[in-house]
């Protein structure tokens, strides 16, 4: 292992690091929005939209991100939509992540006890008030652990973006290895780079889970 080689590669890795963070952030925000909308449609069994959501989540969860990206990158242009590689990456992450987030939110909503909902009904809440004052606050709090796991999962999935040549962390490492053959150094930096993102994030999310649970349920 050579420090000099590692040092020389750092500016390139820094770029990849920033791009990984940027794509992951946009993808995760989009996935949370899509997931929340889908889970609400599913929870309230809205006509027409519920089967669409079911089909979407089944397709998204049961096909690999790799194939989804190929589809966006190679098949969409045939249909006339030309997207940049980064756009494909973000859309792919939202497509995949949205279905996972939907499942996470649904798990949270399903975890609300029936008696809490009945207590809301018993004081005359309308459907909307029940959602606003009982289902959303409690369901969201219950879904935080699943959402946190999804966030970590989706960040790691960005490594697959390398197949459509997005210069994120993994792509940077593989490119450098291809050019200079310093496999050990570049893989070492790659692992450290992911660890720098994921370990602190994981700790923060665990702390957040506890805070939210205590704030909502008091234990």
């Amino acid at each position, binding site marked *: 292992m050579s420090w000099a080689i590692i040092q020389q590669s750092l500016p390139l890795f820094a770029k990849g690091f920033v791009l990984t963070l940027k794509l992951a952030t946009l993808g995760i925000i989009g996935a949370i929005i899509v997931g929340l909308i889908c889970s609400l449609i599913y929870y309230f069994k809205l006509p027409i939209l519920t089967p669409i959501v079911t089909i979407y989540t089944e397709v998204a969860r049961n096909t690999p991100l790799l194939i989804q990206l190929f589809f966006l990158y190679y098949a969409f242009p045939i249909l006339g939509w030309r997207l940049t590689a980064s756009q494909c990456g973000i859309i792919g992450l939202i497509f995949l992540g949205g279905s996972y987030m939907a499942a996470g939110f649904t798990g949270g909503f399903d975890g609300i006890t029936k008696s809490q909902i*009945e207590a809301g009904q*018993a004081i005359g809440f309308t459907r909307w008030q029940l959602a606003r004052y009982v289902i959303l606050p409690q369901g969201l709090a219950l879904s935080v652990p699943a959402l946190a796991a999804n966030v970590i999962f989706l960040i790691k999935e960005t490594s697959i973006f390398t197949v459509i040549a997005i210069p994120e962390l993994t792509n940077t490492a593989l490119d450098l290895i291809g050019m200079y053959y310093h496999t050990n150094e570049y893989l070492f930096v790659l692992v450290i780079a992911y660890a720098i993102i994921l370990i602190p994030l994981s700790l923060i999310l665990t702390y957040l889970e506890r805070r939210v649970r205590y704030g909502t349920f008091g234990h």
Partner: protein
Amino acid sequence: MSTPLLTVSHLEKSYQKTHILHDISFDLDAGEVLTLLGPSGSGKSTLLRCLNGLEAFQAGTLTFAGEVITQKAKQWQQLRQQIGMVFQSYDLFPNRTVLENILLGPLKVQKRSRETVLPEVEKLLQQVGMRDYRDAYPRQLSGGQKQRIAIVRALALKPRLMLFDEVTASLDPEMVRDVLTIIRQLADTHQMTMLVVTHEMDFAQQISDQVLFLADGRIQEQTPGPQFFKRPQTSRAQNFLASMDF
């Protein structure tokens, strides 16, 4: 004679193939306290829940204050402001303070102003001895305290009928008395119309104007309270009272 506040006539309730309630009919006059007694599984709680729209029924008619209940969601939503219910599991909202729990109904559902509601709520809190807890969260309260708040939460809507579903069943014995005292005061001093499901026989005897004795989903007898506890008419009820060590 004035019309009853609540009339239940020939109510039938089943889950899929299981018949839970058979031909339930009774009247409840304003100011009257009716206790539902009977062995476990006799359908008491289910009957109570039918009267608040938490369970649908398949046949029969409910009439509340002259209005026939059609079981439409919108109608139940309106009626629940007049028919308060308190549950065994209290079910305060854990993410809201005591005061917020109580105010949600009057402010959000009934759209009344905070200035008019707050004095009423403070008075109710005072009556149940919980005035100092208005800013506490449910997690900071004991079971008995939670149940008192749940009662205030229901009363804050100014209901005309209160349903109590085994409200002391998950409380420690020393807290049971506090909660039952509050319910009795509600009957004595406020002439609140109530339907009470309970296993506390002493309490039932003190509070009941009428007793409805259920077994196997059928009304076995409806008897004025004092008479029921002295001389129940049916052998089922006699056995039931004997088994309750009463």
